[in-house]
């Protein structure tokens, strides 16, 4: 969609604020998104859902303007012909079968019943629910329900897909499957907005991210570039192993490591200034130690530490 200059971007948020009484949901946010998969990151309450509800015309901005394909969604529903929306809400029509559900909603796009049924069967197959599409939604697991919601958002082949916490509450298998669906859609050239409060999830889907915090835009750009900034700051790596002290000996001689600690029995904490460098030497040391390693954790490599870093940078 980016090839024509006169075509308005899929999403254009211009100095938008939204407050609920005294509580601020979105604070002076400006954003333009067109093409590719964009992850919207932020802790709970950062304004991700508010942002999506503004885009879906469910709430009205207190200030500023929201445009989908150049149209204000609060007054005009026409952009929704080109938008698929997966809400955070878990509520579905429990008594319907998956096929029925997607077909009914597909008909709201003006499809005939046959056309809607065909396309619904197709998208349900795409999200991997072909074998259960005649079952009632009430019997579906959380991951299956998320995929049904994704299917209904895809049934009219939209150009812009908005997914509000699509991985929330899903088991690892469902996560993997949903992530691959999102990636595939991205490869088809659609504009995709996907929100999450878990950095790792987004990282597996896309590199292009928007970080929201307290309703404000904290960062926008490539996840790795942002992560790179973070890597230069002190980080901890926690290794659970049989003999932490002998493993510590191997690490202490390495360049990026500036300290070790033994916080608990059978646990080694390595302190480093360059996380990626530390990770690049880590495998060979672990293999060379001939020890049984039960786990390796990066407690500082999460959204919280990224946020606290970014907030510090801003301040």
């Amino acid at each position, binding site marked *: 969609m980016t090839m024509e200059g006169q075509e308005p971007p899929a999403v254009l948020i211009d100095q938008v604020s939204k407050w609920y009484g005294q509580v601020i949901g979105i604070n002076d946010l400006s954003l333009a998104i067109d093409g590719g998969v964009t992850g919207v990151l932020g802790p709970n309450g950062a304004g991700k859902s508010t942002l999506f509800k503004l885009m879906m015309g469910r709430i009205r901005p207190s200030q500023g303007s929201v445009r989908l394909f150049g149209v204000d969604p609060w007054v005009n*529903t026409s952009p*929704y*012909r080109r938008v698929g929306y997966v809400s955070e809400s*878990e509520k*579905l*029509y429990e008594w319907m079968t998956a096929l029925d559900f997607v077909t009914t909603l597909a008909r709201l796009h*003006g*499809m005939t019943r046959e056309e809607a049924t065909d396309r619904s069967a197709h998208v349900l197959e795409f999200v991997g629910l072909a074998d259960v599409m005649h079952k009632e939604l009430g019997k579906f697991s959380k991951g299956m329900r998320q995929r049904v919601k994704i299917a209904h958002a895809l049934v009219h082949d939209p*150009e812009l897909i908005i997914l509000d916490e699509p991985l929330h509450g899903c088991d690892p298998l469902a996560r993997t499957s949903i992530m691959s669906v999102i990636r595939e859609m991205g490869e088809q050239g659609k504009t995709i907005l996907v929100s999450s409060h878990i950095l790792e999830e987004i990282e597996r889907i896309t590199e292009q991210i928007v970080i929201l915090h307290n309703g404000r835009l904290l960062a926008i750009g490539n996840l790795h570039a942002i992560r790179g900034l973070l890597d230069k700051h002190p980080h901890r790596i926690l290794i659970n192993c049989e003999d932490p002290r002998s493993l510590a000996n191997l690490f202490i001689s390495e360049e990026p490591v500036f300290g070790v600690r033994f916080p608990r029995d059978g646990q080694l904490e390595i302190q480093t200034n360059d996380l990626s460098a530390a990770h690049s030497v880590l495998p060979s040391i672990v293999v060379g130690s001939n020890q049984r390693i039960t786990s390796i954790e990066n407690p500082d490599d999460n959204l919280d530490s990224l946020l606290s870093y970014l907030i510090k940078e801003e301040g």
Partner: protein
Amino acid sequence: MDRRGDSLSESVWTRMDRKAGAIIELTIRQLRHRISTWVVLGVGVLLMALLLTFYVDSVRESFEPIDNDGDSEDNDGDGYPMGQERKYGTPDWDSEQYPGASVFVPESDIDWNDQYRSAVGNKSWQGSAFFEASWVDDQYTGEWWDSHVDWNLNEEGVPELEDCSDWEVEEILESFWDGACDFGDADGDGMTTYYVVGQWRGEGIATVPEGDYLSWGHWTKEVYVEPEPPEMYINEDGIDCFEGLVLRGTDWNDSRVDCPSESRLSGSHGFDNDGDCLSANDGYGDDENRNGIRCDVQWIATNGVVTRIEADYLVDEDPDEQEYIGELGHRTFVIAVGKMAFVILLGLFIPLFLSLGLVRDETENGTLHLLLSKPIHRAEFIVYRLAGYLAIAGSYVIVLSLVVGLLSSILGPGDQLVRLSDIPVWMGIGVATTLVLAAYGSMFNAMGLISPKYGVYLCIVFGIWEFMMGSFSILNPNWAVASVSISHWALQMIDAVVLLAWPDTIQWAAMDGAFGIDSGLSVFWQPPVHTLGTASAGVALLNSLLVLLTVTVAWIFIAKSVFSRREIM
């Protein structure tokens, strides 16, 4: 954007149709999945079944002959029904007076003014006199039940009374008020003179003192009159109509026409078949309608329809039930069921259960976002939801009304198997109720949106208002306040449809009132009010239709303006 390769001929309208179809279908399926839907619709069916059993029961009862004027009763227990006593001019409250009973015939009297103050004979006397008796009847009970003189006869048949022969006449007159005293045989002719005050019978010479009063007469001979069976006085005075002329007493059967259905004549009709009006002769009632003709019925028609019937007292007052109550009762049943059961009860309760949450519940269930993330306007959404609700509620009401209509028309009076003229009335009831469902539906839906939490209470308050105004509208459709209600207009619509389908209903209602048939038709039905001065049922029908549709659309607009400003969290 049309990448699906949809045909170019596909217009905006067909797409809208499809969206409408999808939401209507969704709404219907949602309602079908709710227990309350089945409960309220089931209760409606039960109600109708109950009413039909009442109808069957009343149809059987009303065809039994009823004594509308009560003249088959024998109130005084003398063995003669009131109708027979009326013909003979005897009262039905005195068992001593009955057809053929001996009657007192007054002959003459002596008052204070008369010069000649004596009378002779075997008479029944009343008053006071010196009575020189050759014979007295001590069994005499007189015309009234008091002041009978007790002669106190001894074994020889001679009265034994107080002796007043020594008294001065003035003394007797002043001190004697009741009964008789022995004045002695002053002239020595062997006949004793008594001073008597009261009623007595005897032969002799009565001499009335100055200033006193005496009247006398005789009793006719008692004749035996065969008592008539009470059944004779049931349905004995039917409703007669005469072609043009009023016939009195001769061959009225020949010129009688079937008046309710064919003749809508204005003028004097009616004949006192049982003669109770003509023989009453009591100075009033025999020309109560003041048309100058005794004992008739004045039919008053406007525009070829009898609108008023004024009957003289006791004329055509006991018509045959088979002939009239059947039809009247049937119409009353249809109208009462249409108004009370369909418009007021079903019309209120179905929307209360089915429409209040049409849009509100989607918000509360959290499923609304699924629908609103589709290219569909919120106003469109409201209209389609209401259409889905109406598809269920409206078709239910129309089918139910036709089933009740068919059953009652098979059970109802008339020669044909199915009363065809009933069908349009039941259709009208179905349509009027559907319009009420639409109006209340859009109103209650708006209430649910205006106040999701307290909307139900608002609806109940409105429901009570509508119920009250509906009831008042049935009793008095002219009451202006009642027209500020939805039910009023729907009831008016039924009134109009009834008049269109059964144009002679006004006449039937008039007959019902005039001849005491008591079917209740005029309680449940009155001619439509809102005819804009044309008295045309068609105008009234259109008027009501327009009001109901306007109310529906107005509430949809209110709901729309509330809903499109609402933020959905």
